[in-house]
């Protein structure tokens, strides 16, 4: 009766989770563990895609752990946005691992690598767990599994500044998770259940009460800290700058989007409808923060002097776009946010892959050290420039699709929408400035540094990943149907409107 096919929803979590300890003890100074981690990631990626096909055909997949009926047992509930995120996470992991093949030896000594790859798989298992589970407390546990492993990975950066950066990340991350736990506590007090579907049904009886409002506030605060929403973003640029470059590529693509996914669940499926008059207050506050996030994030990115830091602050801005879409509370807004979560992963993974290639060859990611790098590493920098176009939102790229849907969603809300659209365009112009700043130094400044190695182009594995991601940026910019259909059916699922 029970075939392996029926068990895929749980395998997508347990496969990387079980592979992690094996990777930790494998011999081979990093190469064998790398191979094993890559195979585990690739299998997870395939499972995620097969789940996506199933969700597109039959809708949300419920899975009862140990066959205990909900709400007594824990359920996995895999909806359209869950599979989209699972594809992003496992895909980012796979891309990051191929970047590691060429770039890890330079930054992390080989004896440390098996443990690093074990943490890598734990992060992936935790993040996928968060997006697939249907239990509010389970989210907390998976969040901590992935976060604890993330702190270790950041602390392994080549520079000693990685250690304080990791500490800062740990303090903020623990605060975020604990605030989330407080929110879950208040919800449990009011309803006596932790199952998300059950919570939503039972909250209807106690809607519009103070504890539910406080729970909503704590949940949003905790997720905002985890997701690096302005003004709780301070840990993120630091962590990305000092983490090993392949790790930064992996994290930048997925780790801050997963808390935003939980935000979607909380706002739309759990407390959102039960806040009464306070609902607008909460989403209004979040919208204000998100607008400040993309203006301030882009502005700081312009003035940053380290390439990884520029991209980190640019992520702060992009998180702003996503939260804005989520908090609009409309079907179009949620669709736009979901699409942007996917597209942003594509562009940031490509940009960080290019940065990792630069770091492998030059040992630095300071912009002033990159003078003339465009001539030394033409393929890498061309890839960087094209992914940069996607980040800015030039037509025919994935970034354009995100901005197009976001602006369309914003214009629906009336006169305020026009003002917000102007701000988004302004922030996109700032993106032009900070990407151009890098391009200018890379192509139009005379070469200052001598690259000691005779080979100047990046390692082949990084180039392949970089160009696959760049091409994917164009592919999903021209034919976004796959992402769109998943994003739309998520919006239909949680808002109950067909559009």
């Amino acid at each position, binding site marked *: 009766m029970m075939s392996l096919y029926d068990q895929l929803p749980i395998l997508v979590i347990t496969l990387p989770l079980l592979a992690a300890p094996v990777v930790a003890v494998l011999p081979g100074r990093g190469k064998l563990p790398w191979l094993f981690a890559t195979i585990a990631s690739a299998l997870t990626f395939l499972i995620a895609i097969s789940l996506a096909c199933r969700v597109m055909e039959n809708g949300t997949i419920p899975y009862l752990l140990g066959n205990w009926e909900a709400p007594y047992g824990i359920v996995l509930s895999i909806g359209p946005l869950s599979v989209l995120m699972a594809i992003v996470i496992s895909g980012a992991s796979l891309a990051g691992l191929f970047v590691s093949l060429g770039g890890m030896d330079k930054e992390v000594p080989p004896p440390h690598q098996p443990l690093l790859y074990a943490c890598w798989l734990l992060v992936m298992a935790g993040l996928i767990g968060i997006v697939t589970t249907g239990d509010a*407390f389970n989210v907390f546990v998976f969040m*901590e599994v992935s976060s604890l492993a993330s702190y270790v990975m950041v602390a392994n950066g080549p520079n000693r500044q990685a250690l*304080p950066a990791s500490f800062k990340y740990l*303090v903020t991350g*623990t605060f975020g*998770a604990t605030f989330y*736990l407080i929110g879950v*506590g208040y919800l449990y007090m009011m309803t006596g259940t932790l199952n998300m579907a059950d919570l939503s049904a039972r909250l209807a009886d106690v809607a519009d009460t103070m504890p539910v409002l406080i729970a909503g506030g704590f949940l949003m605060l905790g997720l905002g800290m985890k997701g690096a929403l302005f003004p709780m973003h301070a840990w993120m640029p630091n962590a990305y700058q000092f983490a090993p470059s392949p790790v930064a590529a992996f994290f930048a693509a997925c780790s801050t989007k997963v808390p935003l996914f939980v935000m979607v669940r909380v706002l739309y499926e759990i407390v959102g409808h039960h806040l009464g008059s306070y609902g607008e207050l909460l989403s209004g506050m979040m919208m204000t923060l998100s607008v400040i996030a993309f203006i301030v994030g882009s502005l700081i990115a312009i003035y940053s002097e380290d390439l990884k830091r520029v991209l980190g602050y640019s992520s702060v801005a992009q998180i702003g776009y996503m939260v804005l879409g989520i908090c609009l509370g409309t079907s179009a807004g949620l669709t736009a946010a979901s699409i942007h979560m996917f597209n942003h992963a594509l562009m940031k993974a490509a940009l960080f892959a290019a940065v990792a290639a630069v770091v492998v060859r030059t040992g630095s990611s300071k912009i002033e050290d990159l003078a003339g790098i465009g001539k030394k590493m033409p393929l890498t920098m061309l890839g960087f420039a094209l992914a940069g176009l996607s980040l800015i939102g030039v037509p025919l790229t994935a970034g354009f699709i995100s901005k197009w849907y976001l602006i369309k969603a914003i214009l629906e809300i009336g006169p305020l929408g026009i003002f917000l659209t102007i701000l988004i365009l302004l922030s996109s112009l700032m993106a032009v400035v900070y990407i151009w700043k890098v391009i200018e130094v890379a192509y139009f400044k005379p070469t200052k540094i001598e690259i000691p190695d005779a080979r100047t182009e990046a390692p082949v594995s990084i180039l392949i990943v970089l160009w696959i991601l760049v091409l994917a940026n164009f592919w999903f910019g021209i034919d976004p149907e796959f992402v769109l259909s998943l994003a739309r059916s998520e919006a239909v699922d949680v808002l109950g409107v067909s559009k």
Partner: protein
Amino acid sequence: MNLLGLYNYWVYLFLLLVGMYTVFAKNNYVKRLIGLSIFQSAVFLLFISMDKVAGGTGPIFTGNPVTDAVFANPLPQVLILTAIVVGIAGTALGLAITVRIREEYGSIEESDIRKMDDQS
């Protein structure tokens, strides 16, 4: 509302704020970790307080079928058991990072480390 009856929740609030204050105000990494632990303990207290049923016993299964016994809700206790484990792992990791910081910088005061980073 009986203010004294909410004694546990006052302690929860107090510990929460003490923990937060310590994390933000202290310069020393170990002290900040202590603050973080206090902050987390406050939340454990919140969960443990909410599962208490007046006049109830501990939720221990004795083997005899019980129908009329009053006992505390075991679920929050189990949740907090998990959260305590997570908290310990976080604290241990934080201390390990502090040890590495001390090895690299020779100090665990944030202001010293900032100064050293600015110079480099």
